């Protein structure tokens, strides 16, 4: 592997990411899957870095989940998206930042469509006006939230309390980076580093002391899909894709996985449990799985936030192996205590997956 070759490609795929003043929109599902990731993103930007990032109470789904599940036509989706842009315009912002990868892909798709077919944009303006009375401006910049953390990666590194380094060996942690398909596979130029060798997460891993693992099935989808998971009969196909990735990465002995998509960390995390229960196979060290994180969670760990404030207790694949390797201080007694100190309840112990 020649790193210079990757750097050459990374240099070809740089995008303009504004420093400040963002209108931020959350994902439909992330708050259930990884409940503290978005909050952590806002905390880092506002409290650590002093940025202006605004959320609107009337923001809704972008409807991408319906579009990708074949239940909502693109025209409807465009009008829903136009309404989000209207909220941004009304709030006085021009930089649009979204938490969800599929939203990001969808926004990119819609903005490109409007660029090439201005008559479609005009129709959407008329439809939105007729339906809601709102008007909107097209965002000046579109960024995925991981683009912004990538942009701030060195500032985060300068405030780091922990590094992505194994404190027992002094070696960098070996990190698999997994990029959501809709980040740049549709529009390689919209993603940091392009689509074949994306740099957005690799850049964070490097800046925070880790070592990126490139393995044969790196580009493969996590297996989420939409219909493919939503229908129970199709789930064997979804989990098979995840299994393919784990079989391919396991020989590289990665310490952890970092992701930038709502679905990927969820499926890479949960399917490890399912594979373990179905086939008795685990992929991490000592019978554990390979811990899976969102980039906000990793940034939060690096900054020294309490793992339980980062929501790591809802991961199905145990995260403690990484906390121990990084030397992160945590209190096992408080793992299942809520913010108010009440016991959240303890998950059932699985038959094969090892848990703490």
């Amino acid at each position, binding site marked *: 592997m020649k790193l210079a070759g990757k750097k050459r490609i990374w240099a070809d795929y740089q995008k303009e990411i504004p420093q400040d003043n963002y209108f931020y929109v959350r994902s439909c599902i992330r708050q259930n899957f990884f409940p503290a990731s978005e909050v952590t993103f806002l905390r880092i930007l506002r409290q650590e870095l002093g940025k202006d990032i605004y959320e609107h109470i009337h923001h809704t789904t972008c409807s991408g989940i319906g579009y990708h599940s074949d239940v909502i036509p693109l025209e409807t989706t465009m009008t829903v998206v136009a309404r989000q842009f209207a909220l941004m315009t009304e709030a006085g912002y021009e930089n649009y930042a979204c938490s969800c990868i599929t939203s990001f892909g969808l926004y990119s798709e819609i903005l490109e469509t409007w660029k090439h077919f201005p008559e479609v944009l005009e129709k959407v303006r008329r439809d939105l006006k007729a339906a809601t009375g709102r008007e909107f401006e097209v965002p000046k910049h579109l960024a995925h939230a991981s683009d912004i953390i990538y942009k701030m990666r060195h500032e985060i590194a300068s405030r780091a309390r922990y590094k992505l380094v194994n404190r027992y060996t002094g070696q960098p942690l070996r990190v698999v980076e997994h990029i959501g398909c809709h980040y740049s596979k549709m529009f390689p130029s919209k993603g940091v580093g392009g689509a074949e060798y994306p740099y957005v997460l690799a850049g964070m891993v490097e800046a925070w002391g880790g070592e990126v693992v490139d393995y044969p099935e790196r580009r493969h989808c996590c297996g989420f899909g939409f219909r493919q998971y939503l229908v129970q*009969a199709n789930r*064997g196909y979804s989990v*098979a894709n995840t299994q393919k990735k784990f079989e391919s990465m396991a020989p590289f002995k990665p310490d952890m996985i970092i992701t930038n998509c709502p679905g990927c960390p969820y499926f890479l995390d949960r399917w490890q449990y399912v594979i373990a*229960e*179905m086939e008795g196979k685990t992929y991490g060290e000592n019978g554990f799985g390979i811990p899976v994180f969102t980039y906000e969670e990793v940034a939060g760990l690096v900054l020294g936030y309490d793992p339980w404030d980062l929501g790591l207790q809802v991961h199905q694949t145990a995260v403690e192996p990484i906390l121990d390797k990084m030397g992160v201080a945590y209190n096992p007694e408080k793992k299942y205590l809520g913010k108010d100190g009440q016991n959240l309840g303890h998950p059932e112990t*699985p038959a094969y997956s090892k848990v703490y």
Partner: protein
Amino acid sequence: MAVQFGYSINKSNTIDMDTAPRAMESYLLLHEPSFARCIGCGCCTATCSSGVFTQLNLRQIQLRIRRGETQGLLPEIQKCMLCGKCQMVCPRGVSTRNVVLSIQRALQLLS
């Protein structure tokens, strides 16, 4: 299994050349070297007396052997009536008759 999931993990349909069994291929290349000359034109299959009524497809059987996909080959190859028409039409001079007979012998030897 402790948990009933209601689905199981799909198996891959990828041809994995790293693990594909190649014994049948080696046998054929040794005992009927013209086996290597096939260009996959499908003339043999087009003219096959049996293939118009069954799933017998000599072009595909040739390829399956080269990719190690030899499961279920016996009932397929047994449909051949050894009429010899495929050998007449083959533009590459493959001795298809001996290919078929060699496959049958290989199946016996390798079983």
